[in-house]
């Protein structure tokens, strides 16, 4: 019962935390570019404004896909704080991402079509890596359950340092940070006009933004698994990881999807195999 309560509270609080993280993200990015930057609460202003705009959708299918995306993102956070199975969360997360792409594919806009294809390639890139991360966690702790990872005595980072780097790749892609923001870049005005998000507008876009905040909380939760033994260790790890993501976002330009596929699979698989061999031998 305690776990159920914790999971419910987490689902209610996650958008608040995700929104604050997004606000800090924009503030830090502005700081790195020697600008003042928007207020920390800016993402909330954006989302409330979008909720108040008149709905304008291409077809009813888009409404369904947005809601499925939001609910599946909420469900991953719920399952995570329930201490449930990592693989189950992975499948739920995938369903959300697939519906998100289907909503974009259901329209006739070439921008949305190109963005959706790129989003599919992006998913193809990060999903095997996340699975490998989960498998390696299970190899160390003997279980796919989050609750058992939290009761494991030592920080996982000692045994899975390379897998944390691999998770970092997946994190960069999932958070849509450059150089991997090929499907929905904020800045690609002339090229694909936010790609997969092109045909979503008003309240639908707001729901997508909220779902993205849930995703951020979930992915940061996955990072937290690597130092689950102490609160401060976990907090420092999360702050350092997210700041590293921001720096990478600001110092890199966007690349092509082929480059992304080659680099991330190449390095990700190599690091995973090395780490798994080390585990197996040790």
């Amino acid at each position: 019962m305690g776990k159920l309560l914790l999971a419910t509270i987490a689902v209610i609080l996650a958008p608040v935390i995700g929104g604050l993280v997004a606000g800090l993200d924009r503030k830090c990015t502005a700081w790195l570019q020697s600008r003042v930057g928007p207020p920390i609460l800016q993402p909330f202003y954006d989302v409330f404004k979008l909720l108040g705009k008149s709905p304008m959708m291409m077809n009813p299918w888009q409404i369904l896909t947005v809601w499925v995306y939001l609910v599946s993102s909420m469900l991953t956070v719920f399952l995570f704080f329930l201490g449930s199975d990592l693989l189950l969360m992975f499948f739920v997360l995938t369903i959300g991402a697939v519906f998100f792409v289907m909503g974009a594919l259901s329209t006739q806009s070439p921008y949305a079509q190109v963005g959706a294809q790129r989003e599919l390639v992006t998913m193809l890139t990060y999903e095997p890596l996340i699975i490998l991360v989960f498998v390696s966690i299970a190899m160390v702790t003997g279980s796919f359950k989050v609750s058992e990872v939290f009761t494991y005595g030592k920080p996982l980072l000692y045994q899975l340092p390379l897998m944390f780097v691999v998770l970092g790749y997946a994190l960069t892609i999932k958070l849509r940070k450059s150089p991997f923001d090929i499907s929905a870049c904020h800045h690609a005005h002339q090229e694909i006009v936010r790609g997969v998000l092109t045909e979503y507008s008003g309240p639908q876009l707001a729901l997508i933004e909220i779902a993205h905040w849930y995703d951020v909380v979930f992915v940061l939760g996955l990072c937290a698994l690597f130092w689950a033994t102490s609160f401060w260790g976990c907090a420092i790890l999360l702050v350092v990881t997210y700041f590293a993501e921001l720096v990478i976002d600001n110092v890199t330009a966007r690349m092509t999807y082929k480059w992304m596929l080659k680099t991330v699979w190449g390095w990700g698989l190599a690091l995973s195999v090395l780490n798994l061999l080390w585990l197996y031998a040790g």
Partner: protein
Amino acid sequence: MLKDWINKGRLKSPWIVHFDCGSCNGCDIEVLACLTPIYDVERFGIINIGDPKHADVLLVTGTVNHRNKHVLKNIYDQMPSPKAVIAMGACGLSGGVFREAYNVVGGVDKVIPVDVYVRGCPPKPEAIIDGVVHALGKVKAALEAAG
């Protein structure tokens, strides 16, 4: 309460889509100057977004002519309401030095309703930011009138 928050958001996050009806690029680089660290309009929540479906404010530069008036109307229609239009520069206001030409319609307000006019050839970035602030003032007055 939700309505209050939505109204607050409307004033604090005007996303701009910038459409160039064939301007000489003078107005356009002044618009882009607003985004640089010197003026940094993002601190007011203003983002230059590429997609009319996400935008709240349409910023039009350049001379409207018989060929691009359809495009301008199309972009305006694609924006979900509430929305505002800012016409910029001498050409956007009246056609400027090209107003007598056979293919020129005149100002932006001949095609779509304009809320704020920003004068100049080209206007300074300060004037553009001032224009957005005036547009927001109009939005605020409309919100208060609607209760």
